[in-house]
């Protein structure tokens, strides 16, 4: 019996060794952004110029490629190579790239394409190539009205981003924010909307009424915001597609931070009465209001988890302002922040894996993220005053606003929108015509 077992063991060892394969572990690599070449899109002969208002765009192919480049650079994940170094011209590149030429400039991915513009139609084709493997990764075509060329550029950016990272893009999106003008002591606040790159700014209110906390619906192009009408706070709904807006309700007490539920059917907000603030939801179809928290403390800034099962909010029920998570019916309330300082404005990531927040510690303001159970707190950026983070639809980038110090008369004051990604290294100013605050990121328009 022993001999048999030994024999089986030897056979096992023999088989194992005979099939042995050399393995090498690769545990290090290059963490630089991926070098991408965005060749200007070739404009077919006979194409017309694109008119946009008073502007005439002569080479729309080049303009589209510029926008794609800017999007990539701002993402921090790609390194668009300088066009001066391109060896192959767009007229040839869009037919068949000579990969050797692109490898020469160290490009790992290449974007080519062509544009045809007629009177009322713009047709854009693009292809993404894996330069190293020498194969096509994705090829798509779009047709639209010529005036929409910027959106086409954003959609192309999204498609490439998705193909190269495996996650959805966020370029074909818009940001609603409060535009601010005038001295600090007398600010005019208007509701404004723009593309995520700061282009196409439109003002939605006149500035004669105070507007606060605009928030996009995660499902569609609806916005909820707070505005004061005859010193009474009102919650409004605005449909960006149609321009129709409607009062959701008048509230006698103070109302704060209305925000949509993930399915877009409810609004959750905090509502203060007699110095006590609690969290309420309102069903937009039935207008039934439901009280979610009932505590003597101040509960504010509620935000749903993407599955709608949980709500995070901040409360001072422990003495200091901290972040709590509860079930959407208000049960099972748990405190998740225990660090030093005050925590506020929690916002659940659309991916569900993180909660973004503002932290105040020793007079400095931080924007950070943590897991929904409070673990893994990471502070991404620190400044004199900054708050109100809002997630990009893919849960990778946060937009927030930052104010500068001013003297007693308000000189030197400014409020600007900034974005930062989850690494904390890619912090960028978002260009706006005026000062801005309280930004909110829309879902993808092309979803």
């Amino acid at each position, binding site marked *: 019996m022993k001999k048999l077992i030994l024999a089986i063991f030897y056979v096992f060892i023999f088989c194992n060794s005979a099939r042995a394969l050399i*393995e090498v572990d690769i545990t290090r*690599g290059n963490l630089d952004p991926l070098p991408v070449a965005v060749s200007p899109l070739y404009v077919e002969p006979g194409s017309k110029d694109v008119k946009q208002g008073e502007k005439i765009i002569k080479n729309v192919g080049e303009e589209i490629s510029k926008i794609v480049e800017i999007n990539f650079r701002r993402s921090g994940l790609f390194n668009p190579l300088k066009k001066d170094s391109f060896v192959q011209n767009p007229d040839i590149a869009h037919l068949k790239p000579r990969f050797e030429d692109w490898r020469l400039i160290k490009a790992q991915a290449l974007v080519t394409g062509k544009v045809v513009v007629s009177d009322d139609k713009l047709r854009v084709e693009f292809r993404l190539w894996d330069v190293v493997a020498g194969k096509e990764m994705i*090829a798509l075509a779009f047709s*639209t009205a010529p005036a*929409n060329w910027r959106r086409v550029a954003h959609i192309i950016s999204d498609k490439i981003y998705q193909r190269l990272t495996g996650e959805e893009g966020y370029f074909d999106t818009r940001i609603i924010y409060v535009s601010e003008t005038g001295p600090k002591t007398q600010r005019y606040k208007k509701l404004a909307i723009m593309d995520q790159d700061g282009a196409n700014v439109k003002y*939605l209110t006149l500035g004669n009424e105070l507007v606060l906390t605009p928030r996009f619906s995660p499902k569609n192009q609806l916005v909820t915001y707070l505005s004061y009408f005859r010193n009474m706070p009102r919650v409004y709904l605005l449909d*960006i597609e149609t321009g129709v807006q409607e009062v959701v309700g008048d509230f006698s007490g103070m109302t704060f931070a209305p925000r949509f539920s993930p399915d877009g059917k409810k609004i959750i907000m905090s509502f203060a009465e007699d110095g006590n603030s609690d969290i309420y939801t309102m069903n937009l179809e039935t207008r039934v209001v439901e009280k979610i928290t009932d505590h003597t403390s101040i509960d504010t800034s509620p935000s749903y988890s993407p599955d709608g099962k949980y709500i995070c909010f901040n409360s001072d029920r422990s003495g200091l302002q901290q972040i709590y998570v509860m079930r959407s019916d208000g049960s099972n309330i748990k405190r998740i922040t225990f660090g030093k300082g005050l925590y506020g404005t929690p916002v659940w990531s659309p991916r569900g894996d993180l909660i973004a927040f503002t932290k105040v510690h020793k007079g400095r303001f931080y924007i950070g993220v943590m897991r929904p159970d409070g673990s893994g707190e990471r502070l991404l950026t620190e400044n004199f005053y900054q708050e109100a983070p809002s997630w990009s639809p893919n849960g990778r980038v946060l937009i927030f606003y930052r104010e500068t110090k001013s003297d007693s008369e308000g000189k030197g004051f400014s409020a600007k929108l900034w974005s930062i990604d989850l690494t904390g290294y890619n912090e960028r100013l978002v260009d706006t015509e005026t000062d801005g605050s309280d930004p909110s990121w829309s879902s993808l328009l092309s979803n």
Partner: protein
Amino acid sequence: MTRSVFLSLVFHSAMLIITAITLPFMVKPPIDLPPILSVDLIQITDVTSIPFAAKAAKTLEEVKKKKEEKRVVSEQAPPSEKKKEKPDRIPLPDDTNKEKKQIVKKKQNPEEIKEQVRQASEFEKKELFDPNQIAALIDKSKEDIAETIKKNKKLTQSSVKNAFANGLTLSQEDALKAQIFGCWSLPLGLPYQENLLVRIKLKLKPDGTVLRSEVLDHARMNTPGQGFYKVLAESALRAIRICQPLRVPPTGYEKWKDLQLNFDANEMLKG
């Protein structure tokens, strides 16, 4: 009777007047927005559900009608027709053909390699059948198993981590690693919490160029929610292509002609 009718009339007219005066203040006039959304590659309408649709429905329909009139129907399709028309534009088949040709040549050509292969395999067989080596083999396999468990729990039975024992010395392995480190551009933005190990099996030529490469967990590439894995695997394949010919030892081809590279992004991202 007349008094109550009179009172009723007075109250009703009062109510009508109040309603007429106050209602316009309750509802804000629609904002006159410029047509900022007119690219129609989207099905926003399918997703959009407007809770106050009763009031907005008419306006919505009008806007949609106008849009549809203006809209040139948008497409979003890969221009596959072109591919069929001009297959020579796609470089991949050319490359594949070249590779195939090379393989064919190799099969037809020198018998030397065949001899080498035969010799090597015979040599190996001799070694394996040598009863004096059994003890050593047992020891090695024990070490290997221990190492494997330490380093990576997901290795298959057939792959024993023994680069040193089987084909590459430590310095040769280091040289190969260092070469690939320089070529591998990790996709940024990978989810830290996921398993980020890509195992690629290679068939190498004697000069270190890659004859064939295969992602071992390729089924995972098309798993929903694992889009990042495809991207990661592609980056690893790209690294191999950029690096080739790989820095392999000048001798012992038979031992390293089949090579497995385990690209593990977890270790680096988690630091």
